[in-house]
């Protein structure tokens, strides 16, 4: 029974991001009925939905790491774009050093080296946060300030171009596969994370540390190690995101690669119904949140909003969403529902969340 209830809680947490996604898709559908149309060009699927999945791939991966960091460390990592830029710069240098004969193994080795670089950067942040008790945002501020310059120095002052066929295939499509490669990579990454969360105690440990570090310590969990681990995972996530981003772009632009993506990643975590102050978390919520942000960006473009005003519209949207999701409004909605139940002599069906959403909008 309690298991069922907790599953219901998890589902209701996902209700908000999902319903927002649906609303956005509906708006798109009203704008033009061919929104879901997928065309096949040269044996590859193209269309709005594949484009969204393609565009959001880095953001999704980063928001997974950010969810874990937020849950355990009770703070956010603002250096993810920078560590992605550094690790991908190392990847690009490795691939370029191989010269003409770039094989799949070169790419794979470069990818592993960039993951190792991501681990080092994550360890740097994690040491500061876990062992020196620095607040996460302050600790990652250091890398945020210096990271782009480090990437710039690794690049050697020009933006190197990845002009080999294999990275081109990773950035776009592999011949014979109907789906763009970044989408596949993202799906593989999500599956990996899901397997890790299912088979290990990571979720339990992270949530325990996030809810109360000293209680977790008394129960035999070392909060420092868990927080350190989440930062390591974050480092790998940013390395993977940097890998995808640089292969998509085809060249390494140390100034603009993954710039200010931490804002979107944090937003994705919050949209997914996760608390930024640690505790229970839902990775699927964050993933949906990340896709929602991408859909929102594309919807605003599709609605032909004045490009100067896009950010303002985005802000209004975020505020409305957060107001609906806020605990005060939720409590208010619950009271309204209870009253309605008393008046309606207790119908067995609980239309819990739709009414809350409606009444919240009314309050707006």
């Amino acid at each position, binding site marked *: 029974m309690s298991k069922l209830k907790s599953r219901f809680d998890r589902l209701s947490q996902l209700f908000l991001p999902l319903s927002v996604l649906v609303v956005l898709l509906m708006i798109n559908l009203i704008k033009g009925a061919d929104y879901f149309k997928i065309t096949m060009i040269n044996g590859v699927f193209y269309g709005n939905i594949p484009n969204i999945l393609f565009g959001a791939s880095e953001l999704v991966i980063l928001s997974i790491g950010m969810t874990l960091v937020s849950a355990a460390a009770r*703070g*956010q990592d603002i250096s993810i774009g920078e560590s992605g830029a550094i690790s991908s710069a190392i990847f690009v240098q490795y691939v370029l050093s191989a010269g003409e004969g770039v094989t799949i193994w070169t790419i794979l080795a470069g990818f592993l080296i960039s993951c190792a670089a991501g681990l080092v950067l994550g360890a740097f942040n994690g040491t*500061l946060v876990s062992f*020196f*008790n*620095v*607040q996460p*945002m*302050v*600790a990652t*501020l*250091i*890398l*945020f*300030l*210096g*990271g*782009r*310059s*480090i990437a*710039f*120095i690794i690049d050697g002052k020009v933006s190197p171009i990845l002009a080999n066929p294999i990275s081109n295939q990773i950035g776009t499509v592999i011949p014979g596969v109907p789906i763009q490669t970044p989408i596949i990579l993202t799906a593989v990454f999500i599956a990996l994370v899901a397997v890790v969360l299912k088979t290990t105690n990571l979720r339990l440990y992270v949530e325990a540390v996030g809810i109360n570090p000293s209680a977790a310590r008394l129960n035999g969990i070392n909060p420092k190690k868990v927080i350190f681990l989440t930062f390591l995972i974050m480092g790998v996530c940013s390395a993977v995101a940097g890998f995808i981003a640089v292969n998509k772009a085809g060249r390494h632009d140390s100034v603009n690669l993954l710039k200010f993506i931490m*804002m979107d990643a*944090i*937003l994705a975590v*919050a949209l997914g119904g996760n*608390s*930024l*102050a640690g505790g229970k978390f839902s990775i699927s919520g964050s993933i949906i949140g990340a896709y929602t942000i991408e859909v929102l960006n594309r919807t605003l473009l599709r609605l032909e909003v*004045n490009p*100067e*005003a*896009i*950010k*303002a*519209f*985005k*802000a*209004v949207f*975020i*505020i409305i969403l*957060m*107001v609906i*999701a*806020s*605990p*005060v*409004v939720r409590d208010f909605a619950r009271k309204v529902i209870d009253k309605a139940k008393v008046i309606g002599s207790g119908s067995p069906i609980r239309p819990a969340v739709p009414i809350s959403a409606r009444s919240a909008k009314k309050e707006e």
Partner: protein
Amino acid sequence: MRPKTRLSNSTLLFIIAGIIFILMYGIALISFPVSFRQFQTFFDFFNLNAALFIATLGMCVVMIGGGIDISIGAVCGLVTMACALLLQSGAGNIWGAFFLALGIGLAFGLMHGFLIAYLDIQPFIITLAGMFLAQGLLTTLHKEPLNVTVPTFVALRRYTIEIPWLGTVNRLGVFIPCEIKPSVFVVVALVVLYAVMMKWTRFGRNLYAVGGNRQSARMLGINVKQTIFLSYVLCGMTAGLSGFVFLLTTGAGNIGNGSLYEIKAIAANVMGGIMLNGGVGNLLGAPVGTLTLLTINELIRAAGVQSNLQAIVSGLLLYVFIMLQSIIMALRERRKIKVALPSWLQPHQPQDKSNVESHG
């Protein structure tokens, strides 16, 4: 009342911040005596960065209350552009621009404060939305840089106060007095005002209590929501004012104005010994931290460090300071070091010492 025998964390961190600043300025004096020995260099920190000082004060208030406001840079930029438009269109005079600046800041502050305090939404997300809103409004208003050429404004901008008894003699033997801008007075007045407010008013003390522990503050009968609300309103107004001062300094509204001020303000506050967790920090640490930040930047610039290394060096220095603070605080918690009040501040009854030990 329990007699104080130990320094509070806020004071300790403030002292560390002060020592770091003196150290950095000392290094600067030794390495580059020609430029740093002039008083004008010191005053130029204030002349050119008055807006940053003011923005940092606002951020400091919010940080002591345990929150964060990352919209201050964008609000500052929006205010410069709005005021520049108002002045250029001839619809308003300088006072109009001043009140417009305060009004925009107040509007953002009210929005943030209401949503964060009364609807209990995470401050980072709401102020992020505020940042997007301000940036969006800024680009909607005007995209190109806009110079303000209204004569009264230019006169105010050019107006400088000379200090006749301070100054340097240049190579030709001509005495050049030090110059300060009117915006410096705004900075000083605000620092004094805020320091008094945080130290002696009910709001300031409530804010420390709320930032330290929200639950216990509530149990003490403090109106937690109102206190947080007011802190964001104050921060918003300060950000608006900083935008006005920014316009006074540069004289043009531009999209890039005030960009990254939120990051600079956080860094300055951290160097000044104000903790992001809230409840700890001396307000005077904000200007001291800003001065440290500016000294470091000036030092790196004067040392002729390659431009792409500058960011790395400032990141490294920030790293050193954060580590220093963290190590000192950790040692203090383990009672490895004791920082006693100086003897002339010690209370008269020494037998009370045993139960004071536990006081953090």
